[in-house]
């Protein structure tokens, strides 16, 4: 079969420095095939995706290589022909439709426009008809009233469907999807993914699906390419790569990925991929790879065909790093003790005088991890902020060790404030950007009246506890990576020697490996310090390996509550069932969707 896309020896570099952003990329995609391009932020996956449309962002240039769509080399086209190819031969679905749709244009115009640019059908009549048709294909209404809406009048899912409609309008041969479901809730994501799958299959469109989310591509892509530090390090059929990753990095990725379908601990890997200009000679993963040998530092390993159709760029393909041999999750044995550390009775929370959380009752036992899971708008964050004393508009009783807490943290005693620590999604909320980390971590100690010398010692201890070093105390937040910052924020929470840690989406801004290492850290803290934890997240798979009990929130109520294992295996409520069904899973029985499995 002739390939729809053929990328050969692609190298993109920074204009200013000449550093490689992406190098030695070789990929093909057959018509009707979905290739999943997986990588963490900064791996160069989006850069590759855009290069397929002959586009580079500001400050990036093509150094060498070719990108063929059929017989057309997108990188060699003159301006005018390039324009003609974009949106017609190959189209793009952006990551965030809320910013990629023009806020000042009606959505109907934005779809018709892409047909006009390429003179689709030769007449306005034909273009109107095609617009209606493509809206239908992406399951959107095509009534004049709907087409006249502006982007902000649509839901996130509808906006992304408009993005798909624009992309499919001219019946392209190739489509590049750049994390198109980020920010959508799982049911919307499931629908969008189903649409993508159907359209690519029924029209024989080749798709490059760029994502950091393994679970999404596990169910969508025929083949997977894994990128690390600007290189494709592994390429192969989805089932093969997932079941038996050949590259150590790919193994780590799989081990770190939260999975609702799998019963195993998440394994993290601290550190980060080297950025352009800081990449070493040889294998860029060598800095973090426990299998690294002398040889790995000499040159970037050439591609090795591990099995037919399986390409791996590692000197030890198929070798398994010890750390990735994850133990299975032990079914949680936590018993509900009679004496809860934190308990909520008839808690009702309002936001701007509107009730958003209703009648919440639960107890948190000492040493327990209770996960509050819900989609955006479910009220989970508002509730947890109320517990932390950051939101004051609530009635009912929240008590700590049997003693009712005041509404606002300002009215709580120092001791109470220290015993309940709130960790934010954004570490900057608790780390002052203008003060060194050490000063921020010491804050709770100062509040508690600890003297400076003792505080210094404790800060060092806490930083080490979260796998940072005492040296980090002198650095400023912006000198740290995202994961390190979150660790520092956790250290700050720990410094107060709390009983309850309220973690609000603490990993959602982090890459998979770092996320897993934070989850590991929290688990260790719980085990070693006996902390009770209220973990708030929208990410159901993340919960699996850490929750003792789960409270599922929907529209401000807890709709299902119970031991984690029971809820995931035998959900009782329709809502929970749907949530679980819509969540993509990595471990699906035999990957039966895949032609090559």
């Amino acid at each position: 079969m002739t390939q729809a896309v053929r990328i050969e020896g692609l190298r993109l570099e920074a204009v200013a420095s000449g550093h490689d952003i992406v190098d030695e990329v070789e990929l093909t995609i057959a018509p009707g095939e979905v290739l999943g391009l997986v990588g963490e932020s900064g791996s160069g996956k989006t850069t590759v995706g855009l290069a397929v449309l002959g586009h580079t962002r500001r400050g990036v240039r093509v150094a060498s290589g070719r990108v063929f769509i059929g017989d057309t080399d997108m990188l060699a086209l003159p301006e005018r022909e390039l324009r003609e190819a974009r949106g017609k031969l190959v189209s793009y679905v952006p990551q965030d439709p809320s910013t990629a749709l023009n806020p000042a244009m009606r959505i109907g115009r934005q779809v018709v426009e892409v047909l006009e640019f390429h003179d689709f059908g030769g007449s306005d009549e034909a273009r109107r008809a095609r617009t209606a048709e493509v809206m239908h294909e992406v399951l959107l209404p095509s009534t004049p009233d709907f087409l006249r809406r502006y982007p902000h009048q649509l839901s996130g899912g509808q906006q992304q469907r408009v993005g798909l409609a624009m992309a499919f309008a001219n019946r392209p041969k190739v489509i590049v999807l750049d994390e198109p479901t980020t920010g959508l809730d799982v049911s919307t994501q499931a629908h969008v993914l189903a649409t993508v799958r159907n359209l690519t299959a029924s029209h024989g469109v080749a798709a490059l699906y760029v994502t950091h989310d393994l679970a999404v591509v596990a169910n969508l892509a025929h083949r997977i390419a894994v990128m690390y530090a600007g290189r494709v390090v592994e390429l192969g059929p989805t089932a093969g790569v997932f079941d038996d990753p050949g590259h150590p990095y790919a193994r780590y990725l799989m081990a770190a990925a939260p999975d609702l379908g799998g019963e195993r601990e998440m394994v993290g890997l601290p550190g980060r991929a080297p950025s352009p200009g800081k990449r070493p000679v040889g294998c860029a993963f060598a800095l973090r790879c426990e299998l690294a040998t002398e040889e790995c530092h000499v040159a970037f390993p050439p591609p090795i065909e591990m099995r037919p159709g399986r390409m791996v760029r590692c000197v030890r393909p198929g070798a398994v790093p010890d750390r990735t041999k994850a133990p299975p999750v032990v079914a949680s044995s936590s018993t509900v003790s009679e004496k809860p550390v934190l308990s909520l009775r008839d808690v009702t929370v309002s936001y701007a005088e509107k009730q958003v959380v209703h009648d919440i009752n639960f107890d948190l036992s000492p040493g327990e991890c209770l996960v509050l899971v819900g989609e955006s708008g479910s009220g989970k964050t508002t509730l947890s902020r109320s517990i932390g004393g950051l939101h004051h508009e609530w009635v009912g009783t929240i008590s700590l060790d049997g003693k009712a807490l005041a509404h606002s943290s300002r009215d709580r005693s120092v001791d109470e404030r220290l015993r309940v620590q709130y960790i934010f999604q954004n570490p900057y909320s608790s780390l002052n950007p203008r003060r060194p980390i050490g000063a921020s971590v010491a804050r709770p100690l100062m509040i508690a009246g600890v003297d400076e010398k003792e505080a210094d010692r404790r800060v060092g201890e806490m930083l080490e506890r979260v796998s940072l070093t005492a040296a980090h105390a002198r650095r400023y937040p912006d000198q740290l990576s995202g994961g390190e910052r979150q660790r520092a924020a956790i250290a700050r929470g720990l410094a107060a020697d709390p009983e309850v840690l309220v973690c609000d989406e603490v990993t959602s801004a982090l890459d998979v490996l770092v996320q897993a290492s934070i989850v590991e850290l929290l688990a260790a803290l719980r085990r070693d310090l006996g902390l009770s934890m209220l973990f708030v997240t929208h990410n159901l798979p993340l919960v699996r390996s850490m929750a003792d009990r789960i409270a599922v929130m929907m529209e401000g109520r807890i709709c299902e509550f119970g031991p984690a294992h029971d809820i995931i295996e035998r959900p009782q409520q329709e809502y929970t069932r749907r949530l679980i069904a819509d969540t993509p899973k990595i471990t699906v029985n035999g990957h039966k969707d895949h032609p090559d499995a």
Partner: protein
Amino acid sequence: MGNIGVWKFIGRRLLLGLATLLVVSIVVFAATQLLPSDPARAILGRDATEQSVNALREELGLDRPAVEQYWDWLTRLVSGDPGESFNARLPIMDYIGDRVLNSLFLLVLASVISIPLSLLIGAYSARKRDTAFDHVSSNVMLALASLPEFVIGMFLVVLFSTIVWQVLPAVTVIASGEGPWNHLDQMILPTAVLVLGAVPYIARTARASIIEVNESDYVEMARLKGAPEEVVLWRHAVPNALGPVFQVIALNVAYFAGGVIVVEFLFNYPGIGGALAASVRVRDIPVIQFLVMVLAALYVTVNLAADLATVLVTPRLRTRLK
């Protein structure tokens, strides 16, 4: 615009504008009452007898209670009669009508030149971002923005009218009754000072706004859809860049109202600036009040226009109006 919401918005903003003017009128009136000397005495001079001063106070209505004076002034102002100048003993419009017109002409001229000019400079520097042109123009703008008008004015006078070249008149000589449009050569320097004062602000905002829009996802998306560059610019970039630019233009037109006073003084231009200064000197209260109200009205109108324009080009704001 068939959108009822927009009309309601205009109505609300108009009411708000009128309320602002009402407050200004109270403040202005109160302030003129507090002026340290007696207008009647100021008019008649130091040597006038107590009796004649009192007589004049009575004639001017200054002996009445303040509230009554205010009400009388306000109702007449609303009905279109700003009253009589104490000093000239003429209806205000006859007395300084010309000057209002002259200033307005200066202001319009400065706006008509500075707005397109700064948009061009802004757009061009955005396009040539980080090139030599951009750096030079940024620095020149920064320097200009940090200089007060009278310094710019003096500099221009030195350069074009006196020491270096003598090509332009250093002062304006426009007889009353003669429109300034008959003396365009005399308009060049005053206008230039205002333009040089305003261009840096508008151009910088325009540049920033265009750069932001240019880096936006939807402009990238438009290119990836295969849109020709003109379409990217005019359909996708410009409409989204307008909002902030309107706001800064309004700010600058309002600033002109103040700048005009300095410039008029500098070039002896027969406008409201001179009139205002003269009136304050002789305690010509009706004229002061009238001129301040004119400036306030200008300010309110310009801001209203900018807000309206912003709303019209921003669907997100427009559709929120119910």
